[in-house]
């Protein structure tokens, strides 16, 4: 049982939570993630990235988007509530290299797992360019955090409501075209964004690392549900990753595998909303009766 210490809504669908997890706070390194489950008997286990950790207070920060039934239930929890099961830290930590310049590209809530990696590079004295992208201004998160960290911060939105109106691949390409190329590009975000970031950097032969978030159950290599094809070989995201050489990842297969349960997930999501709406209707009804 892990207590929720703090909760903040960052945008329409995005939440930040600080949760008690002393051992994870103590052991976690940049690049690692957790698995979380609400309801020990019937809940599903979902992977979430660790955005930050405070070893002294024994807490970790998670940032998530309420897109499925579990993340919705999580978003409904409040400060003082408990999350039944949190497992971590999982995965291989980021392999930090000695470099002069690193470009970090974060799309949507991919900015959250990007933060500890960017911070680690910054702390190592590496010049840091951060490119953040979102569909619109409201969906941008952690701008202040990144501003404090980056030597150069480029923000883009799909609709131009904030920063440049373009996809992240545009400023990324410009970075690659400069006189001295970045030593590494790290791209974290929706699979489609990572795919196109990799296609962009491939042209310039700039090493590119991506952090993958796939379907998982145990997170320790036992189920193999998270497997991806990397350079023609099968790899497990949970134990071999989550970070891989982006130029070798078969993103198309990965995206299709991510959609394996789409039908069932949509049904669960709708069921949850129906349940909530019904509860709200009933509450309204009761309130009305109360007024009478």
């Amino acid at each position, binding site marked *: 049982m892990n207590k929720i210490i703090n909760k903040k809504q960052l945008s329409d669908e995005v939440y930040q939570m600080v949760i008690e997890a002393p*051992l*994870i706070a103590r*052991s976690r390194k940049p690049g690692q993630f957790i698995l979380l*489950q609400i*309801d*020990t*008997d*019937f*809940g*599903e*286990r979902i992977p979430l990235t660790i955005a930050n950790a405070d070893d002294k207070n024994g807490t970790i920060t998670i940032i998530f988007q309420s897109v499925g*039934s*579990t993340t919705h239930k999580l978003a409904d929890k409040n400060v003082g509530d408990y999350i*039944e*099961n*949190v*497992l*971590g*830290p*999982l995965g291989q930590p980021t392999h930090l290299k000695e470099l002069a310049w690193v470009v970090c590209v974060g799309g949507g809530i991919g900015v959250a797992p990007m933060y500890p990696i960017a911070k680690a590079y910054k702390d190592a004295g590496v010049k840091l360019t951060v490119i953040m992208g979102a569909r619109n201004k409201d969906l941008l998160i952690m701008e202040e955090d990144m501003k404090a960290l980056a030597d150069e911060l480029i923000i883009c939105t799909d609709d131009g409501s904030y920063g440049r109106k373009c996809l992240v691949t545009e400023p990324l390409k410009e970075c690659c075209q400069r006189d001295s190329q970045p030593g590494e590009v790290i791209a974290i975000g929706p699979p489609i964004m990572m795919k196109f970031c990799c296609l962009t950097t491939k042209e310039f032969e700039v090493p590119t690392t991506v952090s993958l978030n796939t379907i998982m*159950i*145990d*997170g*320790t*290599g*036992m*189920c*193999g*549900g998270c*497997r*991806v*094809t990397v350079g023609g070989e*099968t790899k497990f995201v949970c*134990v071999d990753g989550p970070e891989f050489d982006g130029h070798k990842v*078969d993103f*198309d*297969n990965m995206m*299709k*595998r991510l*959609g*394996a*349960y789409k039908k*069932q*997930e949509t049904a*669960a999501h709708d069921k949850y909303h129906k349940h909530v709406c019904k509860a709200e209707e009933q509450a309204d009804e009761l309130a009305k009766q109360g007024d009478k």
Partner: protein
Amino acid sequence: MSYISKDELQKKACAVLENLDCENLKAKDRMQIPLQEMPSQDPMVRRHNMQEVAIGYTPEQAKVEAERCLQCKNAPCMKGCPVGINIPKFIKEIAEGNFQQAVDTIKLASLLPAVCGRVCPQEKQCQLYCTLGKALKDVDKSVSIGRLERFIADWEAENSGAVHIDIKPATGKKVAVVGSGPAGITVAADVRREGHEVTLFEAFHKPGGVLMYGIPEFRLPKDIVQREITQLKDMGVKVETNFVVGRTLTLPQLLEEEGFNVAFIGSGAGLPTFMNIEGENLVGVFSANEYLTRSNLMRAFDRKNAATPIIQSNRIAILGGGNVAMDSARTAVRLGAEEVHLIYRRSEAEMPARIEEVEHAKEEGVIFHLLENVKRIFGDEDDCVTGVECLRYELGEPDDSGRRRPIAIENSEFIIELDAVIVAIGNKSNPLIPQTTSGLEINKWGNIIVDSETAETSIKNVYAGGDIVLGAATVILAMGEGRKAAEAINKRLTEL
């Protein structure tokens, strides 16, 4: 074997009992007593439910079966039991109607009779050595020791109150047990009995290891596993779920920073093998581990309540011929697949699965493809499985495993249309702990190397047992290894 209902079996048992002069039975008479079949759910009914297939003996059946035992003085059956249960004694107690004494006899050697009575391959262990089976020239006619063990364990659960297990006074010594499967449970119990403080670490949200995630409800009800875990907790064993040793804290951290004097690694063989064939990462291809974990631990078979989804397949293939393959195939039947194909590259004689499981799978309508193997898996434009290409095989000379080597027949390719494939061809050792524990020696298969007498690893005060040492094996072998390790650990702790 045609299906006989529980009522019918009970009627027959009562008739036998009536005519049995129990006081004056001679060995010759005992050999004449008919073997008691295990009552089970009707195959046509059980295809549609997750409830346990085998229902268990009635007291009358148990008594009749117990009277078949010749009570051999040298008790050859006991040498087949990895944990050394006094088999003739507990059977004698059943024959005499002393069920509580029978329980007590078993519990001296095994903490998990309800589990072992269900999942042990008795035909390869105790029952293999049974004199009666030898006299009748058929191992299947041995005394049904496993069924009797199960009967008595279930009787205890229903009739006996909380079991009290004596714990010696606290020694102040701390033992970390990594993994809460059969090996870990055994070590935890045996070490705790000596008064040491024991913490059982489990990565999943529920303890029990393979008993929870691997073996299906219809073969081993999860309530039974949790009952055994509760007993451990009642003994004072601490259970830490959501703790993955090697990540949450490493084994060296537990020993050096957290004050554990000794550690036992029983983390199992959790790394599924794939075949490295084309199409293996298509949507609809799963490891048996994943498929079974979704259904068992995550309860995805309960589609109404569970948040974890599981594929709704109509035509599914299971690749492999072991118990895990049978469990997967029978789960698929219950999840509503119209056709379940089990594809195995050798013949039925070489199948590693228990005969009983193979029989059950057949009764439930699983279609067996023997001497066939999948060459590649096809998919559509969405990368969803549409079928497999198979090759036919014939058997050649015996290989290293002693089984006849399957040889592909050239140009024998054919296609089976499918929408899902479960790969159940085995597990390798999970590398997480060896990777994060410097100095821990492993062999070329990734199994931890231990002293065969003491189960101690290359690191002093670190022991290991179960599948992480044996490679994928059985519940009872893991328990046997655990027992051996616990004995050595208890000895070591008196020296520390």
